[in-house]
Each structure stands twice: as C-alpha cells, then as structure tokens.
C-alpha cells in the first residue's frame, strides 16, 4: 500500500487560469509529504505539500485507492487548492460530459441549493439521493400544480372570452338582421306606394283615353253631319246648275265659314263663285270675316284682293334705269335674310309697270312683307299694283316729292292737336317735327317695325287689316293709335328718351283694342286735304 502511494501516478492538473498540465503525484516514504511534479518539462518543478496542511481530499479514499476509478479530485490545503483529473482521456471525457449534463440539468430543474444537496447526496450515499428525489418530486408537483392552475385559468378565461365573443356575434347578427328587415319593410312600403300611384295614373290615363275616344267619336259624328250637310247643299246646286240660294242666305252661311272654306267653295263651281262674289262685294260682310280674327290671314288677304280690287296687270311695261335697279339690288340684299331674290324681282317688275313711280326706300320693306304672306311674286305684284291706286294712294306716297307724305303729316298734325293735345305740345316743346317720327311709318306702311324691332307679325297685320279695308285713313288712325299708346310713357321725358321710346318701345299689346277708337271720318280727311292743297298753293 505504501509502495503504491509512494510511486508517482500521473494526473492532469488544472491551473487557476485553466491550463492543463501533466503532473505526477506521489508521497514520500514517510507519507508525511505529497509531491506534485512535472516530469515532462525541461526543469522539474516540485511542489511539496505537508500532509498536515491537508484539509480534505475530495473523492479520494486512500484506503481503497483505485486509480482506474478516480475521475477527478481536489486537494484542499490550508494555503491552496489543487484540482486534478484522470490521466485516462476516455474516462476524463466521460466525466466532463457527465459533469456538463449534470450542471445543465441542475440549472434547468434545481436551484443551487438543490445542486448542492444532490452533490451531497452523491457524497452521502443512497439516502440523500432519495430525499433529493422527493424534494425534486415535490417541487415538480408544485410546478405542475401551478401550471395546471394556470392552464385552468387560461381555459376559464378562454371560455369566458368565447362566451363574450359569441354573445357579441349574436348581438351583431341580430342587429344586422333587424336593419335588413327594416330596410326591406321600407322598400316594400315605397313599392306599394308607387304601385298605388301608378295604378292611379293608369286609371287616370284610361279615363282620359275613354274621354278622348268619346270626343273622337263625337267629332266623327259632327264631321259626318257636316259632310251630309255639304252633300245636301251640293245636290241641288249640281242639279239646277245655277244659284238657288238668295244672297241673304249666303251672307248667313259665309259668316260661319272660315276663309279656307270660302276658297274651296269658289273653286267648286262657277255659279258658286258668282254667288260668293256677290256676297263678298258687300264690304260690310267681308269686314266681319276679315276682322273677326279668322286664320289663316294669308288666304284671307288673297281672297280679299281677288274680290275687291282690280288685280290685272297692264300688258305694257317700260325699261328700268340701271341706276334704279342697282339701288334696288343694294337695298334688298342688305338687311333681309330671306326672299332677297323674289323681293328684288317684285320691285323691278313694279317699277317696269309704273314708270312714274321710281323705286323709293321703304318699298322693299312692303314687298318683302307681302311676299312673306302671299309666297308668290305674281300675286304680290298684283296686290302692290292695286295698293298704288286709291284708296291706298301708295304711289303718291312713294313718288318723287312725297306729296302724300306731306299731306299725311299735315293731317296727322291737325288731328294730333285735337285728339292728343298734351303729346302734341310735348313734341313741340322738344322741337321734334312729326315727320322725323312718322316718315318711316308711312313709307314702309308700318312694316318697318317688323324688321327694325322684331315686332310680332300680328300687330302689323292688325294695322294692315284696317289698311286693306279703309285705305289711307286707316294709316292716319294707326299713327294716332300708336301716339296714344305711347303718350303716358313719353310725357315729361327729354328729347333722347322720347325719340327712343317712339322708335323702339311702343307698347303694341293694346293695339287691336285701341285702333277702332281712333277711326277717322274720311270726310274730315278730305277737307284737310283740300285745305293742305290750298295752303301749299299759296
């Protein structure tokens, strides 16, 4: 045994810095001292440790000193501690490995105290180990319990949350369902309302349709009646070949016929034409038709001229001077938007037939206006030709020297003083001569309003109705009417305002009502004409 101890055994020593050194350990023969030396180094370093200095030698039982079983050990002395491990590499590695796993396990499962106890249990044998196991078990159980509790808590929480979420979801679903249902209800309500409305409309329309149908049937019946009547009237006429009805009856009939019907009647047969003409020749009846506002006026005017005035054109015509035709061309082609060619043709032909009347500005307005009504150059020519003669006197109006114009102004001046004294005085005060205002009215026979002011044609046609019936006197009365209509606007205005009102702002609305009020006795005008002639002569 002593021999074994005194022989050196190789170990590996761990220095403080962790370096490993191969050392051999042995005791001296008295076993009082242990030597540690480094045999492989170039010099031999010997550390002697007095046995008395030993405090303990871990894991080293000198009584059964089996080298192969020694894995690692520590020598604690009073001065120092030395750490050694087995020289056998395989064993050492296994130890380190086990140690590492041990440390790892201890860190994972046990506190430092547990580790210490474990180590002690290893040192103290089976008992310690059991107690440690129990400790470990208890600890584990506690941990498990905690974990279980946590799990339980979590589960509970989860359940609670799930419950809450479920309730929320159910509430949301309920709400959405309610909303949807409300919407649907509303839609249904609206639809039903619309349905009722549409139904009402349908019924209305149906009733209207029924009414219309009734009306149509009524009208048809009426038409039938009228046709029957016409046939009744026709039959005796065709049979006899001459006029059966007396003039009196015809006058009664014509009053109820429109102008278009009259035209149709005149076309029907010669005897009928004669009869109507006879009736039409009494102007009083015509006046009822003409001024009754029968439409269309165009036909009326046509009829009127065919019946009352000699519309035949003389066969002879004269050459027109080039300067005059150029003047006509210039005037017609500026200002008008339509019928330029026709108007020019009419004016040139008119000058050809009436060499004494040269072209005068103003004629082109009348020609254009009349073409708008008759839509035929031939007819306009005839009408204008007859308008030149009395009782219209347009040729005197347009002839060189404007004799009619002067007469008209004289007559108007006289009448204005009598009928509208305030206006007459007002114009005098402003130094406005009547001819400044009235000349274009006369020269264009009031058609100038249509082109300069875009006046509705109706007002001009009303003036023309009277003109066609009465001739010259109606022009004077038309002037008086216009002055009367503007009087309240013009009075107390200055020169400029007065002239602009008389030019642009004549209130034509009440023209048809006021025109008859200013009808003038032709006898008076004739007297005035006489006095005018006398005045101008002296």
């Amino acid at each position: 045994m002593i021999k074994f101890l005194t022989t050196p055994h190789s170990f590996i020593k761990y220095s403080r810095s962790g370096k490993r050194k191969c050392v051999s350990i042995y005791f001296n023969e008295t076993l009082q001292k242990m030597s540690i030396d480094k045999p492989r180094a170039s010099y031999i370093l010997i550390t002697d440790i007095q046995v008395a200095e030993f405090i303990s030698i871990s894991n080293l039982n000198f009584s059964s000193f089996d080298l192969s079983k020694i894995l690692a050990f520590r020598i604690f002395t009073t001065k120092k501690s030395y750490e050694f491990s087995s020289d056998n590499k395989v064993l050492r590695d296994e130890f380190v490995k086990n140690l590492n796993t041990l440390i790892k396990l201890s860190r994972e499962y046990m506190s430092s105290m547990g580790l210490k106890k474990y180590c002690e249990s290893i040192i103290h044998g089976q008992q310690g180990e059991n107690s440690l196991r129990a400790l470990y078990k208890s600890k584990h159980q506690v941990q498990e319990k905690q974990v279980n509790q946590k799990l339980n808590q979590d589960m509970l929480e989860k359940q609670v949350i799930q419950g809450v979420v479920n309730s929320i979801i159910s509430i949301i679903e309920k709400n959405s369902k309610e909303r949807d249902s409300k919407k649907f209800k509303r839609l249904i309500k609206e639809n039903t309302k619309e349905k009722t409305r549409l139904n009402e409309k349908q019924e209305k329309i149906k009733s209207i349709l029924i009414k219309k149908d009734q009306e149509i049937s009524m009208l048809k019946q009426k038409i039938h009646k009228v046709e029957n009547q016409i046939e009744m009237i026709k039959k005796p006429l065709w049979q006899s070949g001459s006029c059966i009805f007396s003039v009196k009856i015809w006058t009664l009939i014509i009053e109820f016929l429109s102008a278009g019907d009259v035209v149709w009647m005149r076309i029907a047969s010669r005897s009928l034409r004669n009869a109507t003409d006879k009736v039409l020749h009494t102007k009083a009846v015509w006046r009822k038709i003409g001024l009754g506002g029968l439409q269309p006026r165009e036909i009326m005017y046509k009829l009127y001229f065919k019946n009352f005035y000699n519309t035949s054109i003389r066969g002879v015509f004269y050459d027109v001077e080039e300067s005059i035709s150029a003047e006509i061309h210039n005037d017609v082609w500026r200002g008008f938007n339509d019928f330029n060619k026709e108007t020019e043709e009419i004016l040139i032909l008119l000058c050809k037939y009436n060499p004494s009347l040269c072209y005068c500005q103003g004629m082109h307005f009348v020609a254009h206006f009349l073409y708008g009504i008759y839509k035929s150059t031939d007819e306009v020519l005839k009408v204008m030709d007859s308008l030149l003669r009395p009782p219209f006197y347009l040729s005197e109006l347009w002839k060189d020297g404007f004799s009619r114009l002067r007469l008209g102004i004289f007559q108007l001046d006289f009448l204005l003083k009598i009928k509208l004294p305030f206006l007459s005085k007002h114009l005098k005060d402003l130094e406005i001569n009547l001819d400044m205002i009235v000349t274009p009215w006369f020269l264009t026979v009031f058609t100038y309003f249509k082109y300069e002011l875009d006046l509705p044609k109706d007002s001009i046609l009303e003036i023309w109705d009277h003109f066609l019936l009465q001739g010259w006197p109606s022009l004077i009365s038309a002037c008086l009417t216009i002055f009367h209509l503007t009087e309240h606007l013009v009075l107390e205005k200055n020169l400029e305002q007065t002239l602009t009102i008389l030019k642009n702002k004549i209130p034509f609305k009440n023209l048809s009502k006021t025109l008859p009020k200013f009808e003038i006795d032709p006898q008076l005008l004739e007297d005035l004409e006489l006095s005018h002639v006398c005045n101008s002569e002296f």
Partner: protein
Amino acid sequence: MATMECKIVTLGEGRVGKTSLALKYVKNEFHKDEISTVNANYLTKLVQIPQGSVQLNIWDTAGQERFRAIASNYYRQAKGALIVYDITDRKSFDKVVSWIKELKSQAEKNIVIVVAGNKCDMEKERQINRPEALEFCRKMQIRHFDTSAKSGNGVEEMFMELASQIFEANKGELGQSGRNSRRGKITVEKTKHRENSGKKGGCC
C-alpha cells in the same frame, strides 16, 4: 363745366356707311349688312373735349336721292354736318360736292362740316385718290378723315374733331343763350323750355 348740346346730321349717298359710322361711334357696333335707313335715325352721345363737354345729337339720315327733298328738315338747325363718301365709289364722292354747296347756301352760317372717306379697310378697291380728296377739302377749308366703320379706324378722332370745332364755333352762344332769341320761333321755345326745367334763371 357747361355742357353744350348740338345737332349733327350725317349726309351722303346711299350705302356709303352713314348709319354704320354713327352706330360704331355711339354703340361700338358693326353689322356687315346694315338695313337701309328710311328717313332718319336718332343717336346721342356725350363727348368730353378739353374745353368742356358736348352732347352730340346725331341725326342719321337716309341716303337715297329722293330723301334729299326732305333732308332740309334735318340740317335746318344743325351745328355740324358729317358728309360721308365711299372710297370705292366715285359717284358718292361727286355727291359730296353738291352736299357742301347745298349746306353752305341753305344751312346755318357757322355750320361745321367734316368729310369722311369711309370703308378705308377696303384699300384695294379704292377709286378716289387720297391726295385728290385732301386737295379738294383743303380748297373748301374742310377737315377730311379716312374712316372705317368696320375696323373703327378714325371714327373716334373724327367725331372728337367735329365736337371741338363745334364747341369753338359756338363758344359765344354758350354763356349768353338768352341773347340769341332773334334766330327764330323755335329757339325762343327752346330757351323757354330750358327756363321751365330750371337750368337758367332770368327774364325773357
């Protein structure tokens, strides 16, 4: 500053652009095919000249030859006359001479006359040489202007010149309008009217 009211007439052959010139000046409007004037149109504009202000009452007359018979109605009391001719039409220039003669013999003695050669935007079709027209006007001691109602060239200047000339010629009248009562019946009425409206006091 006193405002002078004066009457101006436009004279000249048909279709030379009398209405267009007046419209261009007063309303700054121009229509290519101005409808022919029957007898006369009336326009008015207030002009500011260095010496004072002048209200121009423009009587735009018809150009047709036969209206000449009644034209005297218009230039009777006119203080200014604008005679227009068309530079592309020789005949219209010839008419200017007769108009000037007529005005000098028939109209007021101190009437201011201005001649305008209109349509100067159609220089290519010019028939009357500019020197010829200027020479003629110089002889007559009348201002001549080249104008175009289409482009507005010279229109403003011409009316301004007319207004200032009229102002100069009638300066004496402005202060003492009451003295001129001899001129005729109508002027008497005019002054009466002015008195009525409260502009001028004093006896008649």
